[in-house]
């Protein structure tokens, strides 16, 4: 191999893994510039911050692989969180009474209510997309507004507060590794890991997962292969909806309050996470793992900029540039 070939090969590798190289550079710089970046504590903090948006990113990843999208995830997180929180809010006795009437711990009712609200929006989106043959972008643009409106109505425009301690314990709770060093892993991290494993399994090992790739790769070929495309789409939106519901409820429990405006623009973070991780926007290509990498990159960069005292306004510009760079890098990849 001569020099020119080596240079070419190097260039190819650099392009292929551009996003990972960029990521490594950022991590190394952060490690040198700040004292606290390379600490276990910080790692666990990053994990905690990734987990809720991470669950939503996993759901988004599945839909993007299917060649679809969901713009409503941020709003659905909010309405799910609000709905769940109402069940355990001492400020809303009538809902609490309703939750208690089931005869089990209202905390479970709250979690279930949040997930069900997300599922309901999944059913709504999925049915209209699959049966009505309307592009997902348009349907979920509509349900984004509907969900946000519903969140305001349910919460009467005010953050749902005074939540039961047993409820906030779900999200705010943690597994303590070392009391003296202050090492804790947040509960939400375990939920995240669970979701990643579950969806990975579904995409890799279940027929439903294989069909998602097939539909994203070539919908008419999937149809001709006898796949019930409508049913798969509906199922995927329902699963995504319930995951988003879970993410919303967990977030609210961690925040100890459910503001109806919460989750604003989270759909953009979720989409960005997928794209940065390398999920093809054209569908058919990507892994759950990609969405995990993408979500981490976004959170780490955010946190790094916080540590470096970069102003929020500049942070947004950096984030935007990273998304574009990631896609530029992706374009060079040979499918």
């Amino acid at each position, binding site marked *: 191999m001569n020099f020119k070939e080596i240079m070419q090969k190097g260039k190819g590798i650099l392009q292929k893994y551009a996003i990972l190289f960029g990521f490594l550079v950022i991590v190394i710089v952060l490690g040198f510039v700040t004292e606290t970046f390379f600490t276990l504590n910080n790692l666990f903090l990053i994990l905690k911050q990734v987990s809720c948006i991470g669950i939503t990113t996993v759901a988004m990843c599945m839909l993007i692989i299917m060649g679809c999208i969901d713009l409503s995830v941020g709003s659905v997180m909010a309405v799910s969180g609000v709905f769940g929180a109402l069940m355990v809010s001492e400020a809303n006795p009538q809902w609490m009474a309703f939750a208690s009437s089931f005869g089990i711990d209202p905390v479970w009712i709250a979690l279930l209510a949040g997930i069900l609200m997300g599922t309901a929006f999944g059913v709504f989106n999925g049915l209209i997309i699959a049966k009505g043959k309307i592009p997902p972008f348009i349907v979920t643009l509509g349900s984004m507004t509907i969900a946000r409106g519903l969140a305001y109505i349910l919460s009467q425009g005010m953050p749902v507060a005074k939540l039961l301690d047993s409820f906030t314990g779900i999200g705010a709770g943690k597994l303590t590794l070392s009391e003296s060093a202050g090492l804790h892993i947040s509960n939400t991290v375990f939920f995240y890991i669970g979701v990643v494993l579950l969806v990975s*399994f579904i995409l*890799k*090992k*279940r*027929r439903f997962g*294989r*069909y998602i*790739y*097939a539909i994203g*790769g*070539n919908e*008419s*070929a*999937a*149809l*001709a*292969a*006898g*796949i*019930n495309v409508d049913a798969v789409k509906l199922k995927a939106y329902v699963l995504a909806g319930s995951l988003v519901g879970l993410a919303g409820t967990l977030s609210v429990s961690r925040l100890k309050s459910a503001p109806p405006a919460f989750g604003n623009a989270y759909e953009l973070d979720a989409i960005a996470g997928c794209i940065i991780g390398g999920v093809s926007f054209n569908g*058919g*290509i990507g892994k759950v793992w990609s969405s995990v990498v993408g979500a981490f990159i976004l959170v780490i960069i955010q946190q790094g900029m916080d540590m470096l005292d970069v102003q929020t306004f500049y942070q947004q510009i950096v984030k935007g540039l990273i998304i574009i760079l990631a896609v530029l890098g992706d374009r060079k990849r040979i*499918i």
Partner: protein
Amino acid sequence: MSDLLEMKDISKRFGGVEALKAVSFSLKKGEVHALVGENGAGKSTLMKILIGMHRPDSGVIFLNGEKKVFNCMKDALNYGISMIFQEFNSVAHMTVADNIFLGREPYTKFHSVDYKKMHQDTKNILKRIGVDIDSKVDVSTLTVAKIQLIEIAKALSYDADIIIMDEPTSALSNNEIDNLYRIVKELAADGKTVVFISHKIDEIYRFCDRITVLRDGNLIGSDLVDNIDIDQLIMMMVNRQITEMYPKEEAEIKEKVLEVKNLSRKGNFEDISFYLRKGEILGVAGLMGAGRTELAESIFGMRRIDRGEIFVKGKKVSIKHPKDAIRHGIMMVPEDRTKTGLILKLSVKENILLTNLKKCMIAFYISKKKEKKSVETFSKILEIKMKDESQVVSALSGGNQQKVVVSRTLFSDPDIIIMDEPTRGIDVKTKADIHALMSKLANQGKAIIMISSEMPEVIGISDRIIVLHEGRLSGELTRAEADQQSVLRYAMGRNQ
């Protein structure tokens, strides 16, 4: 006479694959030159180098004795070389004229697009090639055959000296092919040079003056048509003699397995009734636009029927979705493998197993071992050439891709198989393989419906032939009765 164009010792490598190995190719002014070879022989690569789409790793190109380097397609166009691609490059929601003049729209003196001139020029070009299409209609509303003709019109409109046609007849009916023949001969008489890439041997002999054969990226030979006979040509292409192109084994024909009665779909076909028996290959012939594909897709549940009944093994069935058809034991090999046959981004394995993943499940998950075993069975039977089962299907040659589609069909073990143009655009050897397989399947008791536009194919392997003309059943012939003339007569709607 000196050569108009000479490509000398052209080599090209894609990753680990040597697509062309020091191939030389030359063209004389005013000739129609056939470029033939199996899929993957390097024909398209060689032509893409000629039009500047690919750059050769080594080798030179001389045009009129002068050395030239084509960096992009525009360079080649400027030197008078244009190509009609096998895959269409038209913008669906623009008009015919917009498409033909895309990128070089004429301007008025006020610097706005001169639509009047554009449409007038388009009309002239279409008239010249004898095509009756309104220049103002959207391309998306046209049939494949018409789009193909527009691609031809587009290439001619560049007024190029060298025109490359990559399988220009694959979507055309016999009438249109005759028309194309006339155009090609006129071009040659005008001193233009045509490179004609085709898999259809009769066409090569009909259209061309000279033949160049490639095999596995090597130049095998180049000579005047008169000096190479058909056997020699096939020999050169595949390096072995194919004694029987249509090896039909006689199969025992038993009871009816499929019967359709008065099937109608508005705008596509009307009142179609026929039956299919176990062990039988039923050929469906007709010209482009006769409604054959639509009929097949309706039986398979990809389109809705307006009226009519379908009976499978004597029982009336309702088929609203391909999954219903598959449940009743009907499977289909679609006409267009890249559009509806395959998911190009996925692997060979995933494509083959898609319809019947159930067979590879253990408890609640897909077993890798079972997948591998299933794929191996088929890749052996059909001799699919691939690196391994996880290779992406888009990396395979056309013939091997078709084998993947056929494998998927067989994997779900259907009783009735509908094959829509099963050998379109694939090489001679694969074609023979697929014909042999169909014959074997019939012998095993499967019932096959085969739609084909290639007359020798329909006549060669069908036990019985039904012919469609403009959406109606115009005739039915047994194997003994069928010959090219009779089938064609029905196809053109001339019932005696």
